[in-house]
């Protein structure tokens, strides 16, 4: 028999109101960083960031210095230049790893809560559907931006610090905006479509398969159509290509098809809105059964 009273005290602290979605984000990130596969994928994504960091340092420190013995050697390597195109390539090449990370983090995000009957528990607390949805989606957006916009902006700042001149600043001051814009265009469809598949299907494996198959099928169809009809504008049907088209527009790169970029944006926004509607519809149904 315990010598103390085995009980719990009355809670006398203050309860905070509002911003419950911040707690959902915190918990999601807390769970993710404890998962080894997630950390492994994060490491892969970081390798690319480190390579780009070395590129910026090599360009700014070595190539800009005519007396450096490595300058002639590095000058021969095309694509080493720090430019808008470099940042476009960086974000583009981050996309596959980011897709895998988001897929790992997001495909079980909602369906596992349904399968494990956690919705009843969560919604018996003073949270609303929007706290839940905003929390879940934002955690994926944060992970996405941490691997795209944040390192890219860091590289722009580093570039300015290593070559401190007005000319470089005037050249680069618009880049952070372009980087954030393109990063959001990459991250948002992923952060919405993967949880949408998770909300729609009861298994995270099926959700992952569906989310991989849909873009692959759409891209294949777009490629076939553009080949058969000899019109590159049909490439817009592929979401990855539509995203790429926005990047080309933002970073003033070579455009892959000439249809106005607004159509690509409309495609992306349409997908995001549809996915958001699916998530909200499913989650609200859990919050309010009748």
């Amino acid at each position, binding site marked *: 028999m315990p010598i103390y009273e085995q009980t719990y005290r009355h809670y006398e602290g203050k309860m905070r109101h509002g911003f419950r979605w911040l*707690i959902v984000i915190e*918990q999601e990130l*807390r769970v993710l960083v404890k998962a080894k596969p997630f950390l492994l994928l994060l490491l892969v994504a970081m390798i690319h960031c480190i390579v780009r960091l070395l590129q910026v340092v090599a360009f700014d420190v070595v190539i800009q210095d005519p007396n450096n013995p490595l300058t002639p050697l590095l000058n021969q390597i095309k694509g080493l230049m720090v430019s808008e195109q470099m940042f476009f390539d960086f974000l583009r090449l981050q996309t596959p790893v980011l897709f895998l990370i988001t897929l790992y983090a997001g495909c079980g995000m909602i369906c596992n809560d349904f399968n*494990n009957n956690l919705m009843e528990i969560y919604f*018996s*607390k*003073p*949270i609303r559907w929007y706290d839940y949805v905003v929390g879940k989606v934002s955690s994926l957006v944060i992970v996405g931006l941490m691997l795209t916009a944040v390192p890219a902006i860091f590289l722009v700042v580093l570039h300015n610090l290593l070559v401190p001149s007005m000319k470089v600043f005037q050249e680069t001051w618009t880049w952070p905006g372009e980087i954030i814009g393109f990063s959001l265009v990459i991250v948002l469809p992923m952060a919405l479509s993967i949880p949408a598949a998770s909300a729609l299907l009861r298994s995270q494996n099926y959700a992952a398969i569906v989310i991989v198959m849909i873009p692959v099928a759409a891209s294949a169809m777009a490629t076939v159509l553009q080949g058969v009809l000899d019109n590159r504008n049909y490439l817009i049907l592929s979401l990855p290509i539509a995203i790429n088209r926005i990047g080309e527009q933002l970073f003033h790169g070579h455009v892959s098809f000439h249809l106005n970029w607004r159509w690509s944006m409309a495609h992306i926004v349409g997908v995001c809105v549809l996915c958001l509607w699916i998530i909200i519809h499913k989650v609200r149904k859990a919050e*309010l*059964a009748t």
Partner: protein
Amino acid sequence: MSVIELRDVEVCYEDLKALNGVTCSIDGGTVGLLGPNGAGKSTLLKTLLGFNRATKGSVTVFGMDMPKNALKVRMQLGYMPERESVSPKVSAVSFITYCGRLFGMSRVDAMERTHEVLNYVGLGEARYRKMETYSTGMLQRVKLAQALVHDPKLLLLDEPTNGLDPQGRIELLELIKEVAGRRKVTIILSSHLLPDIQHVCDNVILIQGGVVALAGSIDELTAVVDRCFEVRIRDNKDGFLTGLAEAGFTWQDQQDGNLFVTAPDNTDPRTLFEIARARETQIRHFRPARHSLTEIFTQAAGKE
């Protein structure tokens, strides 16, 4: 003011009326929500939580209309769902802390409360293990802990002893009884297990086919039945029954081997002992009969 007030509440799942004009009021204490499977018990609890919207009638909890004030009500309410709920990849500590934070506690407070309630429900060192490794009993304790973490005034327990072994069941029921007795928490315990209700509750509401078939305190409902006795005799049952018939008694055989004997008007119960002595047998068990919850439940269910 009643803790819970339901007036002519109707809840529908598409064409099916799960609650069909439920009117009842709960003033506190421990209330058992009884009824067969599909009677509407869980629907009633979910209506109190604001998960279901009443198509007709009004629901007030702590004087606040539901589901309009669902968030305010949920601040003072703990809910233990019927189905197994588990967050497999996190520990009980992490899960309960998260639940505490969803109520609005600071991280430090939530962590402190988590350990208090986990101690209280008797989850030892296992609290640091991932929940996917827990037994059913441990998961039930975690479910109870998440409902208690914010120190609620009202606790809704939906089939809390589901899947538990007899020892685990007794432990959990004792814990619930303690919460009600010492913490002065109003508890609504939904179950189709009559012994669970009888063990824990002071009052009972019987739901049958979406309506309240019966409501009242268990003591009143199971009051002593006038001129009725539970009797068990040693042997010579036929002789004893003949003696009973001659003296004007009526009887019914019970499942446990006892006789449910009804004495005629103005007959002294001692007559039973005289009959036994005359028939050369002994009465081994004798007590004034009470209605059991099982009988009440069966009768009420039969009426429906």
